[in-house]
Structure formats: structure tokens, C-alpha cells
């Protein structure tokens, strides 16, 4: 069974700034308190296609995901490793991030896709972010019997974390805006 959730958010900042903020989201030390579930982010690979203007990046995310006690009891760990693949097309102005868990895969598969595109109503000043999360409990795993409950808890956690993520993104955008004004002066 698969559960999918979609969210949309409009940033009143240009695409260039929002995607810059996205790169800084996990890296800036002051955000670590807000996004305390992110323990480590490391870049594993990067590639720039110098002809098309596409940038490919793979990062490893270590996430603290304790989950409800009944899940912890079965899984026996509260750390999850994820791989995040990002493609930024500077020419067409699109950024796509896909994150999947690599650990705990025999229990659960979570895939999160985020896209940042210029907003069709105001493409030079606004950016639309579309986020889709799908959660799949493996049918024969020890979690299967309580799949619905786990999925619900998992989804709640994702919603909470994506609200925090948006707050951080808005804060970095503001900071970058101020910085660019400073340079412009």
C-alpha cells in the first residue's frame, strides 16, 4: 500500500534565490536547531554539464527519526539514512530533489520529491514549490499489521518537518535578499 501526500507553497522570492536557499537549508548552523532531525548532510557526488547548464548532486542525509515507541521496538534504531538526488537546470530554471531512504528499507520506503519552478503568474519574482511524499510499508514486514497507524504517524511527522523546512527556507530567502541589497548598494 502506498500513501501519497502533496503540498504546494509559493515563495515570494525569485527562483534563483529560493534554490540558493534550498542548498543552504541543511548547512547553515543556525538552522540546525530548527531542523534538529537532520544530523548530517554530506555531498557524495556532483557533476556539472557545462554545455546544458545542468547540475547533478547526490547527498547523503542522516536523519533522526525516532517514530512511535511501537515502531522503535520493532526497528530497533532511530537513525535513518537517505540519499538525496538533485538536478538543477539553470537554463530552464527548474530544480528537482528526490530523497529516498536507504536504511530500514525492509520495513518502509519513503520517497520525497520537491520541485522548485518560477511561478507562472509572476515568473521573475515568485517561486512555486511542489512537494510530494509517498510512504510505503512493505507488505510482509513486521510493520505491516500496523501499517495504517505507522503511515499516519509518519505522515504527521513529515508535515511537521516540512513546515519547519519552509520556515527555514523563508528565513534564508530573507537573509539572501538583504545580502543582495547590500551588494547592490
Amino acid at each position, binding site marked *: 500500500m502506498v500513501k501519497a501526500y502533496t503540498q504546494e507553497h509559493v515563495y515570494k522570492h525569485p527562483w534563483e534565490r529560493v534554490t540558493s536557499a534550498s542548498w543552504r537549508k541543511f*548547512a547553515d548552523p543556525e538552522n540546525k536547531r530548527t531542523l534538529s532531525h537532520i*544530523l548530517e548532510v554530506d*555531498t557524495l557526488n556532483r557533476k556539472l554539464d557545462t554545455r546544458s547548464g545542468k547540475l547533478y548532486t*547526490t547527498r547523503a542525509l542522516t536523519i533522526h527519526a525516532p517514530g512511535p515507541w511501537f515502531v522503535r521496538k520493532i526497528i530497533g534504531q532511530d537513525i535513518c539514512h537517505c540519499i538525496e538526488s538533485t538536478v538543477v537546470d539553470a537554463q530552464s530554471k527548474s530544480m528537482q530533489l528526490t530523497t529516498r531512504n536507504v536504511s530500514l528499507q525492509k520495513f518502509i520506503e519513503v520517497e520525497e520529491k520537491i520541485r522548485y519552478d518560477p511561478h507562472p503568474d509572476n515568473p521573475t519574482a515568485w517561486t512555486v514549490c511542489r512537494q510530494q511524499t509517498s510512504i510505503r510499508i512493505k507488505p510482509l514486514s513486521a510493520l505491516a499489521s500496523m501499517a495504517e497507524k505507522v503511515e499516519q504517524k509518519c505522515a504527521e511527522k513529515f508535515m511537521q518537518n516540512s513546515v519547519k523546512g519552509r520556515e527555514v527556507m523563508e528565513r534564508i530567502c530573507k537573509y539572501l535578499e538583504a545580502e543582495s541589497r547590500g551588494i547592490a548598494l
Partner: protein
Amino acid sequence: MGLSKRDKKSSSTSTSPCAHFRSAYHNCFNRWYSEKFVKGQWDKEECLSEWQKYRACLSEHLDDKQLSRFLEAEAAFGSIFQGDSENPV
């Protein structure tokens, strides 16, 4: 990238031994991304020396098992990257 309990305790500072190289790379990358890449200057890859130092540190310190698992997952993920292998930078 230790997964030990001490990582969880220190939420504000990373205990990763590569943190120094990582932030040097991030600083360089973020500048390049905002000031050049998104503005159409993507003909040249930058931050190469920062990247090499960071990468070397990672491969030394990432737990072997962890690294191989990540790399396997990355290979499985490879479909995203296909079709652009003609011009590795």
C-alpha cells in the same frame, strides 16, 4: 560521519571530522551557485580544490559499510543521471 549518540547530543555543531572541509566547500559552492551558476555562467566548474579535500576526507572517515551502502543506493538511483554521461566534468 559517525552515527553514535554523541552526534545527537551536539545539535549545533557537527562532530564529523570533515566538518571543516565541508563548510569550506559549502561556502565556495553557495557563492558559485548564487553568483554564477543561476546567472548563466555554468561553463566552468569551480571549487575544485575544496571539493577534492572534502571528498578525500569523506572517503577516509565515512564508515566503510555506510559508504558502500550509500554508493549502492546512488548507483540504483543512477537512472536520474543517465543520458548526460558524455561530458563528465
